[in-house]
Each structure stands twice: as structure tokens, then as C-alpha cells.
């Protein structure tokens, strides 16, 4: 075997992979933009927390996971759901509160679940998912499954007792958890310097004996690389890992937020580091992306979203008679 074709083949794969990352990030962005419109048209209700600006985090981390791994997320989880492979139709239908939604209309934007891809919510109690991830990992350890559980939460969550208690447990028991702290510098309107006596969150994880790193969360390639390294370490039996992913939400905390706690200059500085633009620029510089292919990607995604909206509009509502279904299990173990 000559080296040349192999090298050529490897480059092609890498390029395809990067285009895939671009597709995922763009899908998340456009999906959420559509949600904003639908929200304004009152087709979607409840709280709507957008991930715009943070797409590289979910995209990069989830690219490093395998199909059997598990994911625990927050109320800002459209990105995690889509990047993990929850069908867009099912996510959109959930936003509409339809029967075909991934949580059968019971959860809405904040509670996306999909067992088939290992997405265990969609948790809207800040910090509430972190102990769950520890327990999922414990079950995997006890049943000799090689699964890794990735757990996403924000900088604000790192102030909750459950964060500290969970990191300690995971480290103490050397459990296979990948803690992913999405540090977007704010917990709602409270800036990180007003939330934390020490703002170096990776260092805080280290104090529990967990190997940790801070990563540029606006660079999807850096995120993916750090996540791959961490997942390798976890699978090798090295216990939990912690990634602090430094990022920024470009929009308000939710649809109900006047964003009076951040200044415009700060927001626009971060927007210059748009993770999608950054990848587009890199791919273009390497000659891997043309105007046409980008336009094609966009129109593809646009059509996919239009189809998802149409399907959600047409989908049936859960019958009212089923209101109290799923409070208790319908089948009991024999």
C-alpha cells in the first residue's frame, strides 16, 4: 500500500467530518431561529432557552461519543438533542406539544427525551441532572458496560450543592462521567463574577481529584479534540473527566428576557467569534467549502426545517383522555 492514496483518503474523511460538524451546528442554529418565529406566532409556548452561539459545545462533545453512550442535559438542550441525533421532526413536534413529539407533548422545549439515542433529558432544575449522570455511570460500572455518560450543565449550576456533591461522588467512585460545564459567563442575569468566589471552574473540578481542562467552546474542533481525549481517558478506566467549555449565548436567557444585564459591546465582541462563521472561514481557507456547497447546505437544512414544521402542524394532539398516562408505568416486571 502506498502512502499517497491513504493520506488522500484520510484527508477526505476529515473534510467530510468537518462538513458534518458544520451541518450539525448550522442545523441547530436554523432550527432555533425557526423556533423564535414560531414562538412569536404563538405556535410554541412555555419557556424557550436558545443555544445560539453555543452550538460548538454540543456539536464537538457529542461528535466524540459513541452510539451507546448516554447524555444528560439541561433546559437549553435543543442543540444537544439535535446533535445527538434525535430526529428533528420529533423535536419540532415536541415544541408544538404534539403526540409525535419526542416526549409526547408532555415535556416541551425544556424536556426533550429520547431513549433510542440515550438522551436522558432535558432537566430544568439547575444542577438536577448532575447526580443522575453519576447514577447512570454507577449502573454502567456495576453492569460492566463500557458506556460513558456526558453531562451538560451551566456555570450557574456549579454553585449548586448537587454539583459539588456529585463531583465528589463521581471522583470517589471513579465513575465514567464526562462533566461538560457550558460556561457562558451568566446564570440568567447574574454574571459569573457574582456567582463564584473563584471563577476558574475547571480548577474547582480539579480540587475533587478530577482531571479537568478549560477549552475554547467557540471552536468546534478544539471542543471535539478535548472531548475525544477525555472520553479515551474515561474508557481507559481513569474515572470522570471535567471540561469547562468557554462560550457565550448570543441571545437572551429565554424569550422573556430584556437582556439588561449585559452590554452591547460585550455581546458583539463575542459574536465576532461565532463558531459557525469560524468553521466556515477555516473550511473556505482550506478550499473545502464553496459558495455553492454552503448555499446547498443551507437550503437543505431550510427544507428539513420546513418539513419538520409542516409535520408538527399536521401531527395529532395527545388525546385528553390520556392526560394521566405515564404517571405510573403501564407494565410491571413479570
Amino acid at each position: 500500500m502506498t502512502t499517497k492514496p491513504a493520506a488522500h483518503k484520510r484527508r477526505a474523511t476529515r473534510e467530510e467530518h468537518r462538513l458534518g460538524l458544520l451541518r450539525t451546528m448550522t442545523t441547530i442554529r436554523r432550527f432555533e431561529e425557526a423556533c423564535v418565529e414560531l414562538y412569536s406566532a404563538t405556535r410554541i409556548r412555555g419557556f424557550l432557552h436558545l443555544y445560539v452561539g453555543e452550538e460548538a459545545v454540543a456539536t464537538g462533545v457529542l461528535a466524540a461519543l459513541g452510539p451507546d453512550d448516554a447524555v444528560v442535559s439541561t433546559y437549553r438542550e435543543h442543540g444537544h438533542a439535535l446533535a445527538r441525533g434525535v430526529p428533528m421532526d420529533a423535536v419540532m413536534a415536541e415544541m408544538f406539544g404534539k403526540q409525535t413529539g419526542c416526549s409526547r407533548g408532555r415535556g416541551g422545549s425544556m424536556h426533550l427525551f429520547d431513549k433510542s439515542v440515550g438522551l436522558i433529558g432535558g432537566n430544568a432544575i439547575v444542577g438536577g441532572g448532575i447526580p443522575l449522570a453519576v447514577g447512570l455511570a454507577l449502573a454502567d460500572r456495576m453492569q460492566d458496560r463500557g458506556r460513558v455518560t456526558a453531562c451538560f450543565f451551566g456555570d450557574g449550576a456549579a454553585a449548586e450543592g448537587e454539583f459539588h456533591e456529585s463531583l465528589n461522588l463521581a471522583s470517589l467512585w471513579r465513575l465514567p462521567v464526562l462533566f461538560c460545564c457550558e460556561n457562558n459567563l451568566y446564570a440568567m442575569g447574574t454574571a459569573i463574577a457574582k456567582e463564584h468566589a473563584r471563577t476558574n471552574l475547571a480548577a474547582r473540578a480539579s480540587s475533587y481529584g478530577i482531571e479537568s481542562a478549560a477549552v475554547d467552546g467557540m471552536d468546534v474542533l478544539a471542543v471535539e479534540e478535548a472531548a475525544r481525549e477525555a472520553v479515551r481517558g474515561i474508557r481507559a478506566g481513569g474515572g470522570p473527566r471535567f471540561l469547562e467549555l468557554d462560550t457565550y449565548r448570543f441571545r437572551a436567557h429565554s424569550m422573556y428576557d430584556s437582556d439588561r444585564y449585559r452590554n452591547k459591546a460585550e455581546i458583539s465582541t463575542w459574536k465576532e467569534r461565532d463558531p459557525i462563521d469560524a468553521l466556515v472561514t477555516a473550511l473556505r481557507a482550506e478550499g473545502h467549502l464553496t459558495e455553492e456547497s454552503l448555499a446547498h447546505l443551507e437550503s437543505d437544512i431550510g427544507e428539513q426545517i420546513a418539513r419538520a414544521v409542516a409535520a408538527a402542524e399536521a401531527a395529532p394532539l395527545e388525546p385528553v383522555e390520556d392526560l394521566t398516562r405515564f404517571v405510573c408505568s403501564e407494565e410491571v416486571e413479570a
Partner: protein
Amino acid sequence: MSETLETTYRDALRDAIREAMRADDRVFLMGEDVGDYGGCFAVSLGLLEEFGPERVRDTPLSESAFVGADIGAAIGGMRPIVEIMTVNFSLLALDQIMNNAASLLHMSGGQFNVPLVIRMTTGAGRQLAAQHSHSLEGWYAHIPGLRVVTPATLEDARGMLATALRDPDPVLMFEHGSLYPMKGTLATDAGAVDIDHAAVRRPGTDVSLITYGGSLGKALAAAALLDQDGVSADVIDLRTLRPLDDTAIVESVRRTHHAVIVDEGWRSGGISAEISARIMEEALYDLDAPVERVCTAEVPLPYAKHLEEAALPQPPGIAAAALRTLG
């Protein structure tokens, strides 16, 4: 005649906090996003500018720690007002509320009282699903050592806080999320109100609709429906869930001989069960029919609008329950 102003439930709450903070240096406000953000539901908007960050204190997301710290501050001579964004998040501080705030006075043989006010949002109706929509004030009303108040009107939003701050013991104030934008007029000199008694919000003769908080409006709407059927409903706003005003409940039942309890909490083991039991204990022979209850369906609340609406008490269901008692 005193002058009046147009206001909202939200603004009335804010005026009450402002007045208390102006009147007493020991009073301060603490909670998540009460400062820079202006309050999750904009109740504290503008207070940071007036009182500064020492007295309008943003906290990290640490419900157990900051509620516990306010208990300590109350023992230490301050008069904290704590804001917890919603009742579901108060569960992270339940240990402090129950095992410290409610118990310290008794455990210490009367030495340490806890003059603390905890305000929080409660209730459903905004499609916020199962982690943001519950009505757990009935749980808190289970706990000796606490007082539980549920302002349902502008007067009470404006006036309950001052009285709660005078209470030597912890008071929990539940603000139904749907009430914040409620508009109306208030006397410009509106101030402290009593928090010991229930109120008759609409006098009637045929059936008692006993309710509180966010369900008051629904009970009044049901009363209007019943009116069309020639049925006169007596609408009781409990105002305080602990201690319950048994006298007001019993007096109403003696007037009407029929009772419907309307509660956004769940039926099983809820405050509606307690109220019903007290009617049995104190007014059984005044009843002409069994007590009816209209409560939230026994389900963690769903997101979808039609399901959420079906889960919650609604005026037609309340009116139907009233008609059932009348046979």
C-alpha cells in the same frame, strides 16, 4: 375618600418591598436575579438602583445555602426577605425551611425565633411543564412553625408583606405566577393587612366555593356561571393556609350548607383534604350534601396546552361541582 392608583399585582408587591426597606434598615432582599436582572418576574425591578447591592443581594444558584443563610441572618437580628424563583426550586431549600426555619424556635426551647419572609412563585397555566408549575403551598402548610400566606388580590399583594415582616416567625408567601400582570386600582395609602382571616370575596347563599391564590379568579368566574343558573355562590378566599381560618370556613358552610373546595394542588393528601376534614369535624351536620373538591389532576403537569388546561381546575368544572352538591 382616599385617592386611588392604577397598579398591578407585580407593582403592588414591589411597592410593599420598597416601603418595608425604606422603613426598616434591617430589611433586605435576597435571591437569584433580584438585582441586575430585575427579578425573574420583574417584581424587584428598580430596587437595586434605589437600595444598592448590599440590600438587594443577588445570590448564586444555591437555594439551600442562601435560604439557610437568611435563617441565620434572621436569628442574627436582620429581617430578610428571600425570593425563590418558583416553588419547585424551593425544594432544594426544603431542608433548611423545614429542619431549621420551622423547627429552631421549638428545638431551642423558645430561645431562637426566625423572623424571615420567603416569597416564591407558585402554580401552573403558562405551559412550563413538570418542573416549573406545581402548587406545593399545601405541603408547606403541613409544617408547624411556618405561616403560609397566598395573596390573591392587589390589596393583599400590597399589604401582606408588611404584616409578615412583623411576624416573629417564618412566613412563606406564595405568589401565583398568573397573577403578576393582574391590573386594578388600589388606595394610594394602601398598607398592611391582617393575615389571620379569610375573606368573603363574593357573598352568596347557596354554595360555598372555598379557594385561595390563583384559583380565586376561577372560583369567581364559576360563581358568575352559577349566577346564570340562579345559584348564588359564596366565594371564600382563604388568604392564609396555615393557620387555616376555620371559623370563616364553618360560617360560610353554615350559610350555604354546600361546599366546594377549589385547589390547584393535587387532591390526594392536599390542603383540600385538610379543609374538607375540618368541615367534617366542625360542620358536618350543617351540610346538605358531601363536600366536593376540584383540584389538579394527579399528574406532573404536562407542557401541551390542551393537556395542561384539562389538568387544572377550570370555571365550568367548578360550577359543575357546585351544581352536583345542589343535587
